[in-house]
């Protein structure tokens, strides 16, 4: 084991170093991207009828009259010192702004994951058990239908049914600090259901495919001939050998739940990172866009790394390289 862990640690360290480089590159890309957009923050703050004097005053105050590379370097220096800076438009501290929103996004993503992951794996197991039968087809078709429909469509259908027609759940998911837990859960019920429907199919299909792959191996036949109960075969003999690709897909979907929820957040008016990002891109508030973009990128990179590590740990062949 001692020999085996070392290459793993080396790999993790190498991946972390690469991630830092990647994040630096991403920060340059985000900065360049927001620079390329027409219009600037002063114009968007003051609107259509801004006077030229007011625009000049505001640009000077925000330091927008400095060249782009200087502004980037200035931002980078303070970011490396742990200071995310303040928002150009509202003058608020970016770190505290993001932490609240990130908490909300993780809350929603967390509950969606808590429901979606066990459900997907369970449905995968059931599908394998009844493979090619009615139940398998039913599960496959419904989850595939759910993934084929765009999130906003699913979201609107759920709102139409549960909020407008039956009026049993709130149509919007505006949560705030100090909101009672039960109300908060009711508020996120619909966005959570939407997210679950969107990520379910991918994980469930992968579980099914990976299991079926293993199920066709000779030792499965032996297990069946030995007279083991079918559920035990799947759970104890097939699943551990199929777990590696399943983990990869699950973690990728978790990453999607965190960074891909922009559309769902907008539909359900959920105060998460997605809305924060959209608001500030519209206003060309570069420091906030930078920080939010980097947080998203870091989460994505981190989860990918975790996926790789877990699939190595789950696979004895990779764990004990010859």
């Amino acid at each position, binding site marked *: 084991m001692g020999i085996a862990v070392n290459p793993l640690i080396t790999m993790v360290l190498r991946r972390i170093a690469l991630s830092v480089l990647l994040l630096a590159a991403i920060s340059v890309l985000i900065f360049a991207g927001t620079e390329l957009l027409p219009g600037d923050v002063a114009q968007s703050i*003051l609107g259509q009828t801004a006077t030229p004097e007011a625009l000049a005053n505001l640009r000077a105050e925000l330091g927008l009259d400095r060249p782009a590379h200087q502004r980037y370097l200035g931002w980078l220096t303070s970011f490396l010192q742990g200071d995310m800076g303040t928002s150009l438009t509202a003058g608020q501290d970016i770190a505290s*702004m993001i932490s609240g929103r990130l908490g909300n996004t993780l809350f929603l993503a967390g509950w969606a994951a808590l429901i979606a992951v066990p459900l997907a794996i369970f449905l995968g197991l059931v599908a394998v058990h009844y493979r090619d039968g009615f139940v398998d087809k039913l599960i496959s078709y419904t989850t595939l239908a759910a993934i084929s429909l765009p999130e906003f469509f699913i979201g609107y259908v759920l*709102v139409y049914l549960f909020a407008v027609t039956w009026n049993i759940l*709130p149509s919007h998911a505006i949560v705030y600090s100090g909101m009672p837990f039960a109300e908060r859960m009711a508020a996120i019920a619909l966005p959570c259901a939407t997210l679950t429907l969107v990520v379910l199919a991918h994980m469930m299909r992968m579980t099914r495919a990976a299991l079926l792959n293993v199920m066709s191996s000779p030792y499965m036949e032996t297990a069946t001939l030995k007279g083991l109960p079918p559920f035990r075969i799947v759970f104890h003999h097939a699943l551990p050998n199929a777990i590696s690709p399943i983990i990869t897909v699950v973690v990728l979907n978790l990453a999607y739940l965190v960074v891909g929820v922009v559309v769902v957040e907008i539909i359900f008016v959920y*105060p998460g990172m997605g809305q924060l990002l959209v608001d500030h891109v519209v206003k060309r508030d570069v420091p906030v866009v930078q920080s939010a973009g980097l947080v998203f990128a870091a989460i994505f990179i981190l989860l990918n790394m975790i996926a790789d590590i877990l699939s190595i740990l789950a696979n004895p062949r990779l764990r004990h390289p010859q």
Partner: protein
Amino acid sequence: MTDEANSLSRREFLRGAAGAGVTAAMAGSAIARAEQPLKGGHLVLGLGGGATTDSYDPATYTGPVPINYGRLWGENLIDTNETGDGLMLVLAESYEAIQGTRVWRFTIRRGIEFHNGQPLTADDVVKSLQRHSDENSQSPAFGVLRAIESIRQESSHSLIITLKDGNADLPYLLTEYHLIIQPGGGYDDPAAGIGTGPYQVEVAEHGVRHLFRKFPRYWRDDVGHVDSVELLVINDRTARASALQSGRVHMINLIDPKTARLLGRHPRVSIQASPGRGHYEFYMRTDTPPFDNLDVRLALKFAIDRKEMVKRILHGYGSIGNDFPINNAYPLFPDDIPQRHYDPDKAAFHMRKSGHTGPILLRTSDAAFAGAVDAATLYQQHAARAGIELQIKREPADGFFNNVWNVEPFVASYWGGRPVQDLMYSVGYKSDADWNETRWQRPEFDRLLLQARGELDETKRKGIYRQMALMVRDDGGVIIPMFSHFIDAVSTNVRGYVRDGAMELSNGLAPIRCWLS
């Protein structure tokens, strides 16, 4: 004292009788009078047009959400009245022009308290106005207050405003929504959200949710009926509509004309459309060929079917325009100017006469106004019937007002309107105006504008405005096919809604004018 007596007509105010005997209650309406307002309850608004980047500093207000919450916590000196044809006094007790139309005295009400317990004095008013009229100010109200030479305190409850040139419309300029009176002018903490309004800030989560509680020592009895107002920022149109339909909110704004009628069919929803001063336009730069040719301009003005525009683009929630930026929502509207109609023959005639041939490029973007791209396409078809070929170029919404508007020669545009004609012409049509989109420069027009400004005789003033409207209509570079309504929707248990077209949601006052049944 009746409500009618409280609402000043323009005539009274010009006679200098303003303020005489006028006391607190001013905002009564026909609907409000018919039914006794019920006190109490929790009113929830779902509003579009807010962002995380908003602030309570009135000098930063641009979108609908800040304009609306500004009305909850703050008050101006003066406001326009419900019908839009006169003024009502708010924090001012009276005002008078003491030297022509150049020097004005404003008297402030006594016994009014800010939310922080400080009493309102003339000093607060002076400083508030100064903060917006400072040359280093970024306040959008700066453009309006540029005409002010000095503001000084006269006594503890009166102040004197001196203008650079006479302007009979000064009281109207002070109705600008940025000009909320703050303690100490808001110099210490502009974004504190402390004012004299009926509701005080309890929770402020910009871009998400605001909670306001009734200020117990508020000075008026006729507004601010509910105990608390919650304002939820719901920028997605569909989410707003479903929140109203499911009864989670009582009022929503920014209804798409396309779906307004469908939404109104819901048993719990009523649509409130208020005719406003906002207008949609296509402007032509008169200093750029071919638009420097009057016949080209006239051809393009005759080549648009205004009625169909109102029907197709506004779905009936609007009225047709007549190529000058004033409609009957303005005081002193010249109502006898003949309406210009769609006339392909005349359009073709003027185009032939101009000698211009070939396609004309029209730039549009949905940033200009909702439906601007469709409106341009419709215009293209109208013009084609007159043998005029319009080429449509769709510009990106991002930076539209920076890079295209007021730069390119023939562009779709929008104006929200101004409280008075003088202001509308001063900011958009005077030869040296910053936003003179059409670059139309006529010394005679500028002279008339200044003449009207100093004119106290209402009939004469109306005559001058008529002349100016005709100049813009027949010679100017703007095509104004339509004026739009503000479309809001309220739940059927909301009472006391007044169709006040100065701005959306009853001039932003719906939450304080309405009550819950």
